């Protein structure tokens, strides 16, 4: 897989960069959503903690664009990106984060545990490694239907027992699962390199005898291309595949993150490689008129803001009699 960007003519670019404007729009949707959530968290509308996806948008947008109806995704507590990329409505997602009755889980779940099966999202899993297990299990079901299950997880999760057991399990059962590691260099505040023997996550995955690629996770086209290969492999019945996306979390681990652990200049380097900028510059280079790009951005942003505004006005659930209402 190589970067197809550059100074091609608009016509050629339109083919080479198939759907890039839409991918860009989806990334903007996530970015705009997280901007709103950051604001709402500071205003006290979102409670507990929240793990923003800002900076990693190309990973879930790229991967989910390679999926078909009937495929399933399991994500992490840092899951707003995956949810939006799968089609969860910004209003329903924002309402969930604020604990409103219109939330995609009625306010019961919260940011770390969003579930939206109607859009193929098995769930966001608050336990590190939980998404890997969920997708592995989904692979058992999808083996029957021709579907593919995707697990998103972080670099930190690759040191967990779930990673090892599930990759092995998926391989020996030839399950249609694509394991996507978003390597953002840190698990909470601990540098990946200091806790990951060997330091090469892709190689670890390859050790389970499955195709394993590493891509620039800030380049949505590269992510999509690699994801397509992985998804095809899985859907063909050849078993699981692995994808490491190298990326960065602009806003640190969670809302209580001081960010003090980062090396000087690291954030700046990565800000310069912002996945939205990478995509918009490529569109511009390919001849897309600037106002088309900014027009899309503005439209998406105002759409997100409108949804979030509705959510802010949405009611809290009525506690009623929880035990009685909950038929097990």
């Amino acid at each position, binding site marked *: 897989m190589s970067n197809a960007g550059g100074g091609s003519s608009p016509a050629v670019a339109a083919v080479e960069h198939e759907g890039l404007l839409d991918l860009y729009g989806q990334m903007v949707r996530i970015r705009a959503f997280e901007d709103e959530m950051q604001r709402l968290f500071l205003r006290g509308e979102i409670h507990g903690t929240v793990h923003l996806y800002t900076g990693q948008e190309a990973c879930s947008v790229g991967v989910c664009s390679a999926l078909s109806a009937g495929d399933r995704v399991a994500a992490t507590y840092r899951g707003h990106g995956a949810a939006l990329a799968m089609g969860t409505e910004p209003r329903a997602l924002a309402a969930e984060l604020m604990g409103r009755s219109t939330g995609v889980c009625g306010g019961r779940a919260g940011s770390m545990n969003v579930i939206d099966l109607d859009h193929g999202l098995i769930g966001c899993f608050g336990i590190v490694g939980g998404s890997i297990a969920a997708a592995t299990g989904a692979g*058992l079901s999808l083996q029957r239907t021709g579907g593919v299950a995707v697990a998103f997880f972080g670099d930190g999760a690759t040191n967990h027992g779930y990673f090892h057991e*599930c990759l092995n*399990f998926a391989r020996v059962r030839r399950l249609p699962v694509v394991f996507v590691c978003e390597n953002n260099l840190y698990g909470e505040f601990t540098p990946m390199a200091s806790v990951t023997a060997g330091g090469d996550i892709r190689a670890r995955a390859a050790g389970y005898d499955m195709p394993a690629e590493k891509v620039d996770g800030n380049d949505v086209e590269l992510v999509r291309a690699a994801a397509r290969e992985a998804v095809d492999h899985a859907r063909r019945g050849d078993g699981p595949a692995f994808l490491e996306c190298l990326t960065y979390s602009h806003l640190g681990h969670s809302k209580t993150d001081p960010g003090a652990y980062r090396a000087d200049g690291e954030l700046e380097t990565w800000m310069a490689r912002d996945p939205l900028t990478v995509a918009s510059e490529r569109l511009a280079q390919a001849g897309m008129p600037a106002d088309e790009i900014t027009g899309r951005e503005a439209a998406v942003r105002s759409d997100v803001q409108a949804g979030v505004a509705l959510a802010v006005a949405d009611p809290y659930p009525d506690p009623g009699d929880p035990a009685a209402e909950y038929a097990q």
Partner: protein
Amino acid sequence: MRTAVRDALAEEMRRDDRVVLFGEDIAAAGGVFKATPGLAEEFGDERVFDTPISELALAGAAFGSAVTGLRPVIEIMFGDFMALAMDSLVNQAAKYWYMSNEQAPVPLVVRCAVGAGGRFGAIHSQTPATWLQSVAGLKIVAPAFPDDARGLIAAAVRDPNPVIVLEHKRLYPVKGEIGAEPVEIGSARVVRSGADITIVSVMRGVHDALAAADTLAAAGVDAEVIDLRSLRPLDHATVVESVRKTSRLLAVEEGTELGGWASGLVGAVAARALGDLDDVWTLTTPDTPIPYSPVLEDAFLPDADAIARSVLERLAVAGPA
């Protein structure tokens, strides 16, 4: 009991092809307790298969497949290993139906062999019921008789949400009639009626309580014996109804008093019917791990003798029945 387990699984698999079975050594070898022989042959590798020794993955795969259309039944070989499977059960399977706002149920079953008395030592003899009894969203069944094993497993497989099935090692050889009907999860059964005292237990304890009841009858004490059959949900009503008649309650548990289900049951009954009670207590194990040596293990476990003795002593202290 072995046959009851196998027959229940086979029958449910015939009824519903979404039911799949996986676990360690359950397929080719038919399970280390020989509870699943022949199933791999009948249903094929797609539906019955051996897994790596990976309890995290087993439980996780059960969860993931259950919320996406299958109805997995997994075996955790010894209940002691449930500690390794617990995260997915507790933090995924048990929470999903509620947390998702009831978007999808989680129809999974976990079977495991539990209990002491087999000389398997401290970490192949535990009963993980108490580790899980407080977990909302789980169900735990614990049959004492083959027909209940069959009925409860059928109900467990058809249940929309996660059910743990405890199979007591010392009961596998037990023979008995086997019905075809599911047994309602959460319903206790009065297996012997009596007027003087209610003895409550599960699994092997029910057999011990019944034997003790015979001894007690000879001593003029008429014991009612209740088999809870299910530890979550737990049928407090049947026990309360019984103690309203007998006024005395003994709960017998193969486990410690502290943190055990028996004390919890006594507490729940006391909260509901204190005024009807003349005496309540539990018979449990010493507060140590389970010993290996046969003489130590036998002394450790509450058996029929110990139950009868305990009742007679307690009645003597509390006055004649």
